[in-house]
């Protein structure tokens, strides 16, 4: 890790929101105290108590490339502006360029069109959040790590935080980071059902009667300082450190004591190598709800009172509305503008009486009511707090800061695993199932229920709230902690985090909610169901039931997300942010998923085995969680490592989202990166866990890629599929591949069925004896790939 990598800078900005179609228009509105909130013109508000929204008024979001969801169009607009602002053009598939995008509700507009207009096939690939970063990467030609952060209202901030971490980990030179979300019926009806909308335009840190939804996108070019200087880029500011935490409290309400918020803020300050007094301005989360703003008042006072008597704080949501997954991104853009323009954006909405109340609440904090304020700023912070109890804080500065990376790169051990598959639940159950025969059905389902909840000590008052996606995740996550002998205590709760990987996330709850409001109207959504429409609900529930208070991100970009979670989690541990991480892959199958996959022509009526040359697949589901630990701290607590994560790589080739053909070269890149990260060559690999699922487009890529990577050796190389009898469980299959590799290396699975790619594909079996390193590879729709080397011994 070279020292220069610790310096990250912002070299480009892009933004679209209700107050402008580009950064310049938005900033001009901000400094003129212009609000974008108005009566909605796009969503049906019959019988709803509020009809306010902050909608983008851009007449032309583009139409190139056929149908794309509104969130994707918003994202591309902001990305295009940021690229141009940074004097960048198409990256041509450069693997050193990444795209990380945040979103909360993803393709809800496409979901709404599908259920209320016409069930058109082209809407389906645009529904998942996965579609956003993938299409943004295709748009700008990014060939490196590409994913979405799906942590609701904190997603945009987390994306920017992760962007800098990727650069500091040496995995990228440029990251296009940000977030996008659309205003649509699902979030409007959802927040209406929660009575969380303000009947009037929202008034953060003031009336506290609710939020006003907004929409838009923000994009920032985050770049290594070295790279930016070498190409003579314009540098706005430094991107310093970040803090990401979880509340382990409630799925929608923040902790009243502000503990999670304060952890994120304190970690961001600590990670940046600055002190509280260095910060001149905080772009607060400031949604306008009593629960958020009161917790935030408390957090800000607790952290800054007595340490910083010249702190300005504002919520720009009174102008942009709450842009959900885009909020952190547009607010990061505004924070950078505030810094570079030496201007504190205002918090709108205070009358004379309000100002009196504010002066009591604010103490020495300056909330910059109604009008912007000129102020010499050197360092600014932007905070976001989300459903699921996820908190994120990032710091921008004119100064270099002192972001520290660990001197030594730790080895990463796998010390526990939780496995939920259609064949049964738990590590032992999976081991017993590997020699089983394939079922007859073309669609498979995992089962979790009271037996598992009782075994794991989960109470009905908790699990009654979980949708099935969250149930699968909670059970596999808790199994992994139990399996690894890692009880969560007050002492270690912040030493461990979670990366949930998922392909389709909460698409089913979103569709279910859309069907409900399509039938009963936007005034009649379900407050009980709505929280489960956010993809990070599963990770939030896992935090609540386990007590985990550390890092918490839900990463989604196709099926490979289940293996990518391992790579991401390993990076978090290597960066010294956590001692342990749960890395998971979870996807669900149900009637809604079956309909969508059937419309795509992918659902099979009978079982499809890998390598069978079909044009369909067996849709399956499940959840697999791996407990990864810094091997030193694992040893210190006496934990046995099942195997080790030695190296990880990911890459992207921008093909049409919903397809994979033509993206195979990115798999080569991902594998090469994983081998390099592990310090190994192809000849060190004893077996491969592949990604073939029986669909010929996917299977042919596996064969082509492995042929190129392993050459003549491929004929003797066992290639294992965990989809032989368990179907295509998407992210769950990808994570299961890593688990299977670890169990083979530990000798717990003595023999595995496999294929050998000789002239024909020959079925055989492989003994685990003598295997030292196994390469797990996974694919994702749109052409993203992840590769992880699992080893018997430390790297």
């Amino acid at each position, binding site marked *: 890790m070279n020292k220069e990598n610790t310096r990250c800078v912002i070299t480009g900005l892009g933004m679209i929101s209700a107050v402008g179609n580009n950064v310049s228009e938005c900033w001009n509105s901000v400094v003129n105290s212009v609000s974008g909130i108005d009566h909605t013109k796009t969503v049906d508000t019959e019988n709803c108590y509020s009809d306010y929204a902050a909608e983008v008024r851009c007449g032309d979001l583009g139409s190139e490339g056929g149908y794309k969801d509104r969130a994707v169009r918003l994202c591309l607009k902001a990305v295009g502006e940021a690229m141009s602002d940074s004097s960048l053009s198409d990256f041509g598939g450069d693997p050193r360029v990444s795209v990380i995008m945040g979103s909360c509700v993803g393709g809800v507009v496409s979901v709404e069109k599908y259920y209320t207009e016409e069930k058109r096939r082209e809407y389906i690939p645009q529904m998942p959040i996965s579609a956003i970063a993938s299409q943004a990467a295709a748009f700008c030609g990014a060939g490196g790590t590409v994913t979405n952060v799906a942590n609701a209202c904190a997603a945009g901030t987390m994306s920017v935080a992760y962007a800098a971490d990727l650069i500091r980990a040496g995995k990228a030179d440029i990251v296009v980071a940000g977030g996008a979300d659309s205003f649509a019926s699902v979030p409007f009806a959802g927040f209406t*059902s929660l009575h969380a909308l303000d009947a009037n335009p929202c008034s953060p840190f003031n009336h506290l009667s609710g939020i006003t939804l907004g929409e838009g996108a923000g994009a920032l070019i985050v770049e290594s300082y070295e790279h930016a200087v070498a190409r003579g880029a314009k540098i706005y500011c430094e991107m310093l450190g970040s803090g990401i935490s979880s509340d382990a409290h409630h*799925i929608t309400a923040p902790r009243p004591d502000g503990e999670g918020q304060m952890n994120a803020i304190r970690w961001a300050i600590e990670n940046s190598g600055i002190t509280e007094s260095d910060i001149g301005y905080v772009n607060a989360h400031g949604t306008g709800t009593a629960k958020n703003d009161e917790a935030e008042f408390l957090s800000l006072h607790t952290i800054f009172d007595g340490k910083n008597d010249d702190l300005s704080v504002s919520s720009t949501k009174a102008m942009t509305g709450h842009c959900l997954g885009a909020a952190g991104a547009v607010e990061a853009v505004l924070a950078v503008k505030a810094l570079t323009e030496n201007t504190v954006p205002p918090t709108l909405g205070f009358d004379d009486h309000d100002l009196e109340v504010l002066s009591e609440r604010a103490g020495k904090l300056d909330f910059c009511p109604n009008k912007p304020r000129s102020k010499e700023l050197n360092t600014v912070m932007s905070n976001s707090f989300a459903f699921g109890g996820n908190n994120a804080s990032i710091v921008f500065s004119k100064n270099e800061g002192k972001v520290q990376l660990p001197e030594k790169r730790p080895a990463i051990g796998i010390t526990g695993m939780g496995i939920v598959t259609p064949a049964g639940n738990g590590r032992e159950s999976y081991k017993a199932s590997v020699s089983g025969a394939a079922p007859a059905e073309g669609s498979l389902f995992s089962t979790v229920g009271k037996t598992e909840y009782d075994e794991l000590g989960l*109470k009905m*008052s*908790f699990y009654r709230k979980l949708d099935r996606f969250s149930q699968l995740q909670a059970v596999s996550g808790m199994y992994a902690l139990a399996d690894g002998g890692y009880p969560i205590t007050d002492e270690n709760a912040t030493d461990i985090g979670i990366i949930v990987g998922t392909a389709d996330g909460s698409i089913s709850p979103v569709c279910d909610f859309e069907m409900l409001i399509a039938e009963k109207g936007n005034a009649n959504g*379900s*407050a*009980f169901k709505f929280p489960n429409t956010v993809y990070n609900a599963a990770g939030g529930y896992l935090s609540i039931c386990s007590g985990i208070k550390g890092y918490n991100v839900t990463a989604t970009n196709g099926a490979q997300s289940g293996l990518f979670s391992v790579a991401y989690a390993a990076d978090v541990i290597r960066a010294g942010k956590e001692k342990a991480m749960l890395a998971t892959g979870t996807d669900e199958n149900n009637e809604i998923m079956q309909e969508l996959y059937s419309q795509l022509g992918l659902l099979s009526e009978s079982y499809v085995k890998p390598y069978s040359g079909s044009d369909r697949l067996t849709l399956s589901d499940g959840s697999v969680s791996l407990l990864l630990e810094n091997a030193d701290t694992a040893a210190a607590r006496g934990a046995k490592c099942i195997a080790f994560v030695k190296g990880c790589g990911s890459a992207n080739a921008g093909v049409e989202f919903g397809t994979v053909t033509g993206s195979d070269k990115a798999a080569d890149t991902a594998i090469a990166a994983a081998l390099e990260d592990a310090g190994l060559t192809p000849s060190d690999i004893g077996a491969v866990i592949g990604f073939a699922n029986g669909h010929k487009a996917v299977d042919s890529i596996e064969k082509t890629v492995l042929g190129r990577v392993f050459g003549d050796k491929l004929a003797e190389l066992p290639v294992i599929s965990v989809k032989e009898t368990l179907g295509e469980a998407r992210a769950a299959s990808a994570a299961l591949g890593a688990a299977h590799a670890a169990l083979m290396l530990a000798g717990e699975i003595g023999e595995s069925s496999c294929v050998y790619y000789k002239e024909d594909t020959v079925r055989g079996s492989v003994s685990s004896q003598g295997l030292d390193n196994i390469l797990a590879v996974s694919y994702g729709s749109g052409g993203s790939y992840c590769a992880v080397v699992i080893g018997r011994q430390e790297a």
Partner: protein
Amino acid sequence: MSEIKAKLKDFICSTLGVEEDVLEYDTELFGDGPIGLDSVDSLEIISFVDGEYGVEMTGVGKEHFVNIDAIAQYIDENK
């Protein structure tokens, strides 16, 4: 009253995920007990009561939500 209580119980079990065998008419609904309903659940109950009986419970005191008996009594007195 008994019909109201049966309907409330059915709603709480089918919509709020509560298991039937632990829910009696006098079981405490909110708080740290085995049922553990919270403010989000109360919104669903309010919406159900309004839709089913035309009784508005928004802003009604907590004592009227203690258990199914209390909610049923409030509905009976206000419908």
